[in-house]
């Protein structure tokens, strides 16, 4: 494990294995972080070759960690690498994000709250009306196994022994999945999602050591259509209006003050990227 870690910053994984260009989403996110946070550093872990990364991306990413994803590598899915987040992060304190999440205002004060834990997973999620919700159909597996309602879309960890134990647990569960799943109810997943891995790790180490449910602002707006009471057959983008107003994202005429997990990758249009490029340039 690299000991050369300094400061605090944001980290995401951009592993391109299919049609979605996660590095492009990470670029949008990096611009968004620079536009909304104070002196924020941004690191990306990607399987895209450094020579294939556009220069304008490199100008915004503070750290790029390249990893190999090929048939000989030990990682088979995009999620496998995330269990090594503690190794990849260049920061002493890290907020790890899913690439399709954007901030709408500074969350500088969250760092103070996060420091009450070595690891802190976001708990529950909000709908666009700001109401914490649990949609059973997305979390039946969690309910069946009494797993904490954590989301890996946004989490904090400090470079520390407890954080190492958390990620060790996640890797252990991932490596022993064929065995672990025999003890779980209604388990049909061939490989565990990161949410499931982290929920099980939280259960192993003590849910109270890696969550702060009482700080209900530490979560995000989940824009999966069904999460907001709409049909999953239609994207939220085609259901309600959205627009930018400064740093704020307005969805269906309501300002979003929590981070927005936009979920539908079509949201990341060239126009949106250009919008944040302009905002970052304006700040410089």
């Amino acid at each position, binding site marked *: 494990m690299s000991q050369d870690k300094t400061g605090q910053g944001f980290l995401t994984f951009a592993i391109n294995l299919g049609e979605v260009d996660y590095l492009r989403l990470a670029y949008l996110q990096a611009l968004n972080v620079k536009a909304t946070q104070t002196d924020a550093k941004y690191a990306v872990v990607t399987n895209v070759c450094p020579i294939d990364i556009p220069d304008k991306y490199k100008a915004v990413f503070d750290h790029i960690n390249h990893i190999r994803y090929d048939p000989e590598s030990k990682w088979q899915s995009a999620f496998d690498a995330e269990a090594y987040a503690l190794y990849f992060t260049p920061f002493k304190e890290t907020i790890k994000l899913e690439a399709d999440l954007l901030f709408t205002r500074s969350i500088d004060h969250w760092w103070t709250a996060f420091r009450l834990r070595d690891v802190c997973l976001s708990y529950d999620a909000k709908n666009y*009306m*700001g109401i914490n919700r649990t949609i059973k159909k997305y979390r039946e597996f969690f309910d069946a196994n009494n797993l904490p309602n954590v989301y890996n879309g946004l989490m904090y960890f400090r470079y520390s022994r407890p954080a190492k134990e958390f990620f060790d647990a996640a890797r252990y569960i991932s490596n022993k999945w064929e065995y672990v799943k025999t003890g779980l109810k209604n388990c049909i997943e061939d490989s565990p999602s990161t949410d499931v891995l982290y929920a099980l790790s939280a259960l192993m180490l003590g849910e109270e050591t890696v969550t702060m449910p009482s700080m209900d602002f530490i979560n995000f707006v989940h824009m999966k259509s069904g999460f907001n009471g*709409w049909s999953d057959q239609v994207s939220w983008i085609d*259901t*309600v*209006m959205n627009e930018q*107003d400064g740093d704020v994202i*307005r969805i*269906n*005429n*309501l*300002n979003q003050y929590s981070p927005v997990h936009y979920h539908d990758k079509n949201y990341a249009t060239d126009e949106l990227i250009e919008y944040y490029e302009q905002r970052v340039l304006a700040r410089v």
Partner: protein
Amino acid sequence: MQNSRKSEKSKGVVVFAFNTSVDYVAIADNTSKLIERNLKLPITLITDHDAEPQFEYDQVIRVDVASGNIKLDVSYQQVEWKNFGRYLAYELSPYDSTVLLDVDYLVLDDSLLKLIDLNKDYAFHYYSSSSNGDLYSSMGPYSLPFIWATVIVFNKSDKTKMLFDLVKRIQDNYDYYCKLYNIRERNFRNDYAFAIANIILNGYHIDPGHNIPWKMFTITDKVDRLIVDSKNIRAYFTNKKPILMPQQNIHVMDKAYLQSTQFKDFVTDVTG
């Protein structure tokens, strides 16, 4: 210690009544008796030039009002609905603190006086319940919750003026706001206009601070009789079992009942 130099704010009730096939002015005459008894405040009627109100109002203000809107009544019949121009209440109200009421709202206690004392810019009901449970309160399946403009308590202030100015703008550009807010029904509703104005005015946010902190009780069914009895209200319906509830203000949607002799008798019983 009270400030003896502080001038007393004027307080009063404003009701709008424009006759269509429904005699809203006659309904207002009757419901005003309930208001007078339970709130003991002056009442101003805003109506058209043809109306012949019988109740002794503090003031009768006559205005031109646009027609052309329709709605479904409790029997699901289309009826004309002259509900434009509610935004005029801010300018026309002669009072510093105003309780703006629909004529189908029966004031049977003094709870609205406590709202005036809260001295908010404005407040209205975000929620309403009925004997069938909570009432649906969304402007559409892909839209936002509406508020009930049946009761609006407001103090004259810059913020309140902006609210009413916004309602005018929304009324004037209603097709645009229907599209923007995914509103399913296209007939103009003050419930929707005030809800949209409230959201915009509070920074594109549903601010709970303007909610009247109790639910409005609405009777959505066809009413045969209402009886006030030992601080309870008994409501008898045409097509369902009667209900008993504590005496409270109620919103009665059945305009046929409100024009009936049974309702006049009810008002007489209550007001003595």
